[in-house]
């Protein structure tokens, strides 16, 4: 048992490193995510001018920008395998669990890097209050884990479909909506200066949601991958 789980970890790591190396070579996912995020942010900021925004609007805007930026790059990790016709080789050399965990970690990394760039820019552009920055960071990390957890399986599904681009957002949005609501509500409270204790229920919801999504994805992934 111990040996096989160690094998799974090292295989997942190998898939992760492979994807990371490919990404650094082409930088497609990162470019898409950054350019989309920065463009949306600029449009939002330009349209609003110097208007001072309430925490409610700031929280909503922030997660809309994050959602659509993530949608532009997260599917790439599976779509690339299909487009470059490497999926079959990967299927032969690695077992589905390792592939899924490797890709999941890759998407987490992509999301964390994306958030690390877009979040400071968001605070600069919109002049949002920075008093609760540490608390906001906690929400942000939980949010990224949730986003990655819910979308990686969907990325695998759409990589097998004929129209990929639009379908990803269509399929992911309803699954993501419960957590986007919780994230928006908790960010709003944090930006209004409340402590993490005030949003603990929402955080519990978000963490439970991520755990359920990851478990279900691991169980279901092999049916998509073998297709």
């Amino acid at each position, binding site marked *: 048992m111990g040996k096989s789980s160690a094998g799974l970890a090292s295989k997942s790591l190998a898939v992760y490193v492979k994807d990371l190396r490919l990404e650094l070579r082409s930088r497609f996912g990162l470019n898409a995510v950054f350019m989309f995020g920065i463009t949306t942010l600029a449009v939002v900021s330009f349209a609003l001018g110097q208007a001072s925004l309430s925490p409610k609007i700031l929280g909503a805007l922030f997660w809309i920008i994050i959602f659509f930026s993530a949608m532009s790059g997260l599917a790439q990790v599976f779509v690339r395998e299909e487009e470059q016709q490497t999926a079959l080789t990967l299927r032969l050399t690695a077992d589905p669990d390792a592939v899924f965990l490797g890709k999941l970690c890759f998407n987490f990394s992509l999301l964390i890097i994306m958030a690390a760039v877009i979040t400071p820019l968001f605070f600069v552009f919109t002049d949002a209050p920075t008093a609760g920055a540490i608390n906001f960071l906690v929400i942000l990390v939980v949010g990224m884990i949730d986003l990655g957890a819910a979308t990686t399986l*969907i990325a695998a599904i759409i990589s097998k479909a004929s129209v990929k681009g639009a379908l990803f957002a269509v399929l992911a949005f309803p699954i993501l909506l*419960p957590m986007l609501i919780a994230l928006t509500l908790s960010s709003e409270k944090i930006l209004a200066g409340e402590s993490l204790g005030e949003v603990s229920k929402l955080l519990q919801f978000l963490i439970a949601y991520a755990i359920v999504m990851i478990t279900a994805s691991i169980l279901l992934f092999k049916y998509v991958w073998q297709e």
Partner: protein
Amino acid sequence: MNMWWKYLLFLGMSVIIWISFTTPAPQQEIGEASRIFYYHIPQAWICVIAFAMSAYYSIKYLRKRHALDDDLAADSARLGLLFCLLATITGAIFAKVTWGAFWNWDPRQTSIFILLLIYGAYFALRSAVEDEERRAALTAVYAIFAFITVPFLVFVLPRMVPSLHPTDSVINKNLKFTMGPEVRTIFFSSLTAFTVLYFWIFNILKKTNLIRRKLETGTI
């Protein structure tokens, strides 16, 4: 052919419709509008049953790979979508009468909206995959994955955000609105009638699919 229960259902539903409009309104504070409760909750209930059936046949498909299970999963989702729409519409009418607006993003409305979106997305995915077996497997995975969010939508989310929805629903733990014996009888009769109706429709769809499959393979 055993037809008696179909006549019984017809008679039962007619009586329920008659009684639901002639007895006193189930909740005096809300008044006449609360009669919609006899229809709205059974519809929401059927909507959840249909989606559970869809997830069940999706699991069955992934295990056994019978094309018929995929047909049934899709048809259950179709029926679920229909009842989900009915529940949304009756809910919106009730909201207009009691809260003053058809739509105000009450947590219950948000949940049902997400359910509609999920199954809209399910059919978008079905139309996006050409190969029949691949379509069946991919949509089965999505149906199961989406169904997992239903408990969060029905039980968790509405409790986290303050709601205007009456706490009279069968799924809510704090039954503040206690049903009188008369109201209870009508409500559970209606629930039973709707459930029987659902399984009847489902059975017809099942037979149609079976015949279609047999015609395709030439075994009939």
